[in-house]
C-alpha cells in the first residue's frame, strides 16, 4: 500500500520520504530489492504453538478474540470478561498474559503458547490435572494449566506456596482449588524425572 501525500512519497519499507514516484521506485530498487514485501497496515505476524500466522486485525481487537473467535482455538476461555479470572491466559514470550486485556495489534512478532500447544506437546500437567480431578465444569481449567505451565517453565521445583501464589489470579467457581497444587507438584516431578 503506497502512502501518498500531496508533495511526497513514503517508502513502505523504511518510511523515508521522496519527492517523486520515480525517485521512490529507484530508492526501493536500490535499498530494498531483496527485502520481503512490506506488510500492509493492520497485518500482524504471530507464532502460535510453533506455527507462523499472518493475519489482519482491527486496532481494537483483543488477542483473546483473535485466538478464540478468528483462529478457532477455543481452549482459551472468556469467563470474567475483564481481566479478573485468568481463564484467557496465554503465554507470550515466556510470561503468562491475560489475552482478554491484550490488544492483538500490539502482539506483532510475538511468540505465543496456548493450551492447544501445551496439550499437543503432551505436557505432564494435562495428565496430572485429570488424575487429581483438578477440574469440574472445566471452563477455567485451560487457564489454570497455561498459568501453571508458565510457572514450571521458570521454576522447576516450585513449593506448594509458590504454586498457590502463581495460581491465585485464576478463578474457579467450582472450588477445585485444593487439587491444583497436587497436580502441579506431580507434573513438576514428572518433568524432573524426564530430565
Amino acid at each position, binding site marked *: 500500500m503506497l502512502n501518498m501525500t500531496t508533495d511526497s512519497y513514503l517508502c513502505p519499507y523504511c518510511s523515508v520520504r521522496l519527492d517523486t514516484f520515480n525517485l521512490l521506485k529507484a530508492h526501493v530498487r536500490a535499498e530494498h530489492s531483496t527485502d520481503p514485501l512490506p506488510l500492509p497496515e493492520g497485518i500482524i505476524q504471530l507464532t502460535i504453538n510453533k506455527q507462523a500466522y499472518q493475519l489482519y486485525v482491527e486496532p481494537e481487537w483483543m488477542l483473546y478474540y483473535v485466538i478464540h473467535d478468528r483462529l478457532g482455538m477455543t481452549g482459551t476461555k*472468556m469467563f470474567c470478561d475483564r481481566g479478573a479470572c485468568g481463564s484467557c491466559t496465554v503465554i507470550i514470550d515466556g510470561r503468562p498474559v491475560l489475552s482478554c486485556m491484550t490488544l492483538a495489534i500490539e502482539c506483532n512478532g510475538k511468540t505465543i503458547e496456548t493450551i492447544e500447544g501445551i496439550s499437543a506437546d503432551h505436557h505432564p500437567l494435562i495428565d496430572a490435572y485429570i488424575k487429581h480431578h483438578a477440574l469440574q465444569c472445566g471452563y*477455567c481449567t485451560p487457564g489454570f494449566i497455561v498459568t501453571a505451565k508458565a510457572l514450571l517453565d521458570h521454576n522447576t521445583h516450585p513449593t506448594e506456596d509458590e504454586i498457590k501464589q502463581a495460581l491465585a489470579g485464576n478463578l474457579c467457581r467450582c*472450588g477445585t482449588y485444593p487439587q491444583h497444587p497436587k497436580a502441579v507438584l506431580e507434573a513438576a516431578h514428572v518433568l524432573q524425572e524426564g530430565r
Partner: protein
Amino acid sequence: MMMAEEPGSYQKLREEGQYHIGAEPLNITFNEIGRRGQRRLDGYEKATGKALYTRDMHIPGMLYARVLRSPYAHAKIKHMDTGRAERLPGVRAILRFDDPQVKGRDLNGSYFAQGWARPKLAGWALKPVHLVLADEAWYEGQPMGAAIVAESEAVAQQALSLIHIEWEELPFILDQEEALMPDAPILRPGAESNEIHDPRKFYEVGDVEKGFQTADQIIEFKARRRPHLWAGAEMPSVLVRWLDDRLEMWVHQQQPYIAKQLIAEWLNLPMDKVTVNTVYQGCSFGGRGNPANHSENGINVLAALLSKITGQPVKMLFDRRDTFFGESGDISISDFKVGFKNDGTITAVQMKNIFAVYLAATGIDHFVDNTRIVNLACEATPVDVSIGPAWWARCEHLTSCFSLTLVFDHVAATLGMDPIEVALKNDGTHGHDTGYLDQYKREHGFPDRDSLKECIEVGSQAIGWKEKWHPPGTRKLTNGKLHGIAFTWDHNWDDTRGTGSAAVMIENDGSVTIIGQHVDIGPNPWTPLCQIVADEIGVPFESVHIKPWTVDTGFVLMSPDGSCNLVTNGNIVRKAARKAKQMLLELAAEKFAVAGPEELDIRNGVIFIKADPANSMLVREVVAKAMPMHVSGAFWTQPPIIGWAWHNQGIWGQANETERPRLCRQAHFMEVEVDPDTGQVEVTHVVNVNDVGKAVSPEGVEGQMYGGTVMGVSRGTIEEMIWDPQTGVLLNGSLLDYKYATMLDCGPIDTPFIETGLGHGPYGASGIGEATATIIPALLGPAVYNAIGHWVDDFPITPDKVLKALGKIQQCSDE
C-alpha cells in the same frame, strides 16, 4: 399447545408403586463402583481445552445478538427511536418491544410447574410484568426494550448504545423491610402492597405457645442474609438456527428438556420440531437452572425470533455485567424466637422471614425434616423490591440451613453447652426422635446405623474438637488473632425427584454404550454412570462409554439439579443395564445350550456357566453371533442387545411429599482466626463429614465437598451484591468488584465422608452436590462468635461488622 398445569398427584404415582421406598438388597459385586483412581471421562477434553461449551459454538453465517438492558431500577419507555442503530453498518435487524411478534406477550405460557412454582409466581415471574420484551423495567439491568442482531458482537453492542430512549423514571425500593412500610410506593401496578402472595406463608405444627411455656429459657435474635450471586464461569449464550419450520438450538441450560418444552410452546411449534443440543456447561449451580427466567427462556425466544427475521443462525450472548441477575434465593431478614430446656432440648421454634424477590423456601423445612422438635411456626413473607428476581442457586435449602445452624448454635451458646450435644438431643424427623428413624430403617431394609453420631465421631476427631473447643472469646493465638471453632449439622440430601430414561446398548465388539441426553455442569456425572453399568453387566469400566449430548437420541436423563444427578440417573442406567444383561444372557443361553439365562453370569467381560465357570465365552463372541443376517453369502449382524429404562425417583423432597425420611446426616466443623484490629476473618480449617450413603465415585464426592466448602466460605465472608441507594444501580457488577474466593482464601479442607447405605439412591447413595456450599456459609456465624464472643448475625461477615461487634467502630459501611 396448552398443557395440563398439574402433572398428576404423587399420591397416585406412589399408590401405583412407580417409585421405590426403601433399600434394595445388594446383588452385585462392586468392582468399578466406589473404586478410586478411575480416570474421569470428561477429563481429557476439559484439560486440553478441546471441550466445547455453548459459548464456543460457531456455525457458518452466524450473526450475533444482544439485548438492551435497563439503566434504571424502575422506569418506563415513553418513546424509543432505533433509527440510528438501524443505520449502523453491520446491523441486520432490530426487534422492538412494540413489534407484533412480541408486543404484550408473556415470556412463559401455561406450562412450567404446579402450585407456587408456576411461572406467574416463580422466578422471573415474581416481577410484576413478565413480557419477553417489556417497555418497563423493574430492576436495573433488566433485559427489555429491544434486541439487536448484527454481523459481530461489537456492532450489536455499539448499535444498542445508539438507541435513543425517553424514559419515565419511577420510584424504586431496594430493601424488603422498607418495601413493606405503609407509605412505601407500590411497585406492582394494581397491587395493594409489595408483598407477594405466597400460599405457604404460614406454617405451624404443634403449639409454639405451649412450647414456650414449657421452656426453661427463651431467646430472641435477628439475622440477615444479603444478596449473593451464582456467578458461573461461562457467561450465558444460546445459538439458534431454523431449518424450514424446524428449530435447532445449542443452549447453556441445566434443564434442556424443559427449555425445549418452553420454547416450543412459545413459538407454537410441535416439540418434535425442536432440537436442543447441549455441549459442556461452564458451571450452573442452578443459575442456569430456572427455565422460566428471562435469562434462559427469554434469550432463547429472542434469538429464535431474530434468526427467523434474518434467515441466518443467531447467537445471543451475555457479557459479564449481564450475568448479575438471579441472586441466590436467601435474601432474608429473619426474627427468631426459640424456647428450650436447660438440657438442650428445644421445645419451640418460631421464625419470621422476610425474603426479597423470592418465593421458593420458607426457612423452616430442615427443622421439620431433621429434628424431633414438636412445636414449629414460620411466617415467610416474600416481597417485591427493585432488584432482579432471585432464584435457587446451590441451593433452595440455603434459608433452612441458615436458620438451623443459627438456632442450634445460639441455643448451645446461651446454655454454654457443647453444640454437638444439642444436635444429638434434637436429631429426629417430623417431631419424632431417632427411635422412630431406627424403626423406619429396619422396616425398609436399611442398615440400623446412627448417621449423625458416626459423622460427629469422625469429624470431631479430625478437627480435634475436644481439645480445641473453648468458651467464646477466650483463646488468643500467639499471632495476636482470636481463635474460633464451630460445629453444625444437618441432614444430607438429594431431593430424589425427577424422571428420566436411558438406553444401554452392547455393541458387536462387546463394548457398551449408554445413550441419553444429559448436560454436564461439572460434578463428573458420566464416569459413575459407566461404573454402575460396568458392574451391573459385569464388564470392565474401560469398555463402557456414554453418548450424552443431543436430545435427538430420544432418551433424556434427569437434569443435574436438586443433588439428583446420580441418585436418579444411577437408577435409570442401572435398570437399563439389567435389562440389557438379561437380553444378553438369554441369547447366551442358546449359545451355551443351557436351560435359561439364570444358569449364566458375567464377570470381567466373560460369560460363563455358574456351575462350570471354565465353560465360558467372551461377551463379544455372544453378541457378534447373536442374530446373524444372511446377506450375499456372508454373515452380518446388527447390534442386537439393547435395554432401555424409564425411572421415576420421586416428585419433590423426601420427607414432605414422598414420605421418605432423610436418613443420612452430615457434620461440619470450622476453625477461624479473627484479627481483632482489622476485623478480618480467616478460615483456617474446615472438616466436612457427609454421610453419602454410597460413594460411587469417591473423588467425585470429595470434589463436591471441598468445592462446596470454597463456595460456602466465599459466600459467608466476601460475597455481596451492592446497589447504590440513590439510583438503584448495581455497583459491583463485575468479577473485579464482586469478589469471590481464590486459591488463597480458604485453609485446608478435610473431606472424610462415610458410607452407611442410608440414601434413597442406587446402592443406598445420597446426593452430595448442594449440601456443603449451602451449609458452610452460616457456619461462619458460630465460628466468629466462638472467636470474639459476640454474634455477628449479618451475612456476609465482613470486617466492618466484626469491628462493630467488638465495639471498635460505631457504624458499618452500609449504615
